[in-house]
């Protein structure tokens, strides 16, 4: 059996006296899609920092397979308006040549934005530019922090559909973090429900029945967990509008 792309064993993170995360154990291999959900302050962003290696665990271990290429789509990037930057140059900083950049942008459906200033993009457009930048590195591990934030339901499902097909294409492990319970990718293998520790885990259909899950989010909210399924009769453009 091959070594997982990333594995956590009893990993914990502490800032001073505050335990942000504790006793996290899970691993991901190529092709896995894991969705982490949890309320605000559950430590979702800290978990991402642990996996990315930006933070070192204060207990336990976080191990990335040696030489793993990581693609990262950060949450809500604030760009300095004083820094002029075109989409093409932004991707170029990740180290791709012209053709690779065009290809990545086309793959995420934003090829027409290549020469646009990053300051003129909408939230949804910028998410796709960030995604294009991440896949430019041909990642084995793709990490997305609240990728669907600020998108409407159609935009969200279009984005999730895209992420799924990118997973199929690149055969990478995908870790998505979300505070939004309403839409979880259907092809998610595992939902991790996080609140300092892993409260419960399971397939999306199962987890909404889990008492720990209901307790964390409240009965009403927990019942709204919707599993997003593919609709192959149409697709969506950047804005979530249906295109035949």
């Amino acid at each position, binding site marked *: 059996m091959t070594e997982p792309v990333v594995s956590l064993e009893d990993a914990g993170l502490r800032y001073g006296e505050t335990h942000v995360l504790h006793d996290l154990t899970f691993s991901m291999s190529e092709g896995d899609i894991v969705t982490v959900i949890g309320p605000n302050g559950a430590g979702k962003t800290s978990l991402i*920092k642990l996996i*990315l*290696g*930006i933070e070192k665990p204060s207990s336990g271990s976080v191990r990335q397979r040696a030489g793993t290429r*990581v693609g*990262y789509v*950060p949450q809500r*990037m604030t*760009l*300095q308006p*004083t*820094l*002029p*930057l*075109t989409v093409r*140059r*932004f991707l170029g*900083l*990740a*180290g791709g040549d012209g053709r690779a950049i065009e290809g990545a942008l086309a793959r995420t459906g934003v090829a027409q934005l290549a020469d646009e*200033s990053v300051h003129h993009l909408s939230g949804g457009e910028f998410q796709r530019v960030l995604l294009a930048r991440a896949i430019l*590195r041909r990642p084995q591990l793709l990490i997305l922090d609240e990728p669907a934030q600020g998108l409407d339901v159609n935009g969200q499902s279009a984005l999730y559909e895209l992420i799924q097909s990118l997973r199929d294409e690149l055969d990478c492990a995908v870790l998505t973090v979300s505070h939004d319970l309403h839409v979880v990718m259907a092809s998610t293998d595992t939902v991790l429900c996080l609140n300092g520790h892993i409260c419960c885990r399971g397939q999306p259909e199962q987890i909404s029945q889990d008492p720990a899950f209901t307790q964390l989010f409240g009965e009403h909210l927990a019942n709204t967990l919707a599993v997003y399924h593919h609709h192959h009769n149409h697709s969506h453009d950047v804005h979530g509008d249906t295109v035949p």
Partner: protein
Amino acid sequence: MIDLILNDFFWRAMAGGLMVALVAGPLGCFVVWRRMAYFGDTLAHSALLGIALGTAFQTNLNLSIVLVCVLLAVILMLLSRQQSLASDTLLGILSHSSLAIGLVVLGMMQDFSIDLTGYLFGDLLAINQKDLLWIALGGAFILMLTIWLWRGLLMITIHEELAAVEGHRTGLLRLALMLMLSLVIATAMKIVGVLLITALLIIPAAAARPLAATPERMAMIASVLGMGSVVAGMTLSWHMDTPAGPSVVVAAFGFFLVLWVIRARSPA
């Protein structure tokens, strides 16, 4: 005109000014992008402390300026990790304290008859051949380092964590940027003086912003505008007998005003 060029000290001043402006362009962009204007001021003020200490211990002034600037940069970097004081308060304390300590130390050594105005506002026309060599060497070093580290510096400016994930050594890059700023401030001091150095860094960069679509272009345009300001300011200084350093800054400000007025009048 020929007279103007043949005057040796004027030619030296022009060459020194052009070299500093060339290097200050890209670094000034980082100061603007990363909102480090106040940080630049603080480093510049500490340069006066460097002069005072260098004079007191009779060491090479350029060396003591660089050392004090670098030391202050490192102290600032360490102190900024604590949360109890806002960073602008911290900068204000260090900036004005180092300026005041520098002035007090210089005051205690009255017999050395130091030209304080020269240090505060620059003494471009007094640049000697050794100064020019120092500027050329320091400038070439900073420029090469800027080009070498360009992509990493840009990435930590755009998104620190993304940069870290992509393998950039973010802590080292931040330190390198501070060291380069310290060096450029130490070399630029002769040209515009302690109180006006930040102007030479940020005004050409800010003026270049509306003309540029990529960071590289902005850096190059900032260099060109800075060099233009040196030529225009020195010409003004020659003909009107105005102080050289402030004249250069006034010229830069002129470029800035003109470019932003043109920009405001033409819809993007």
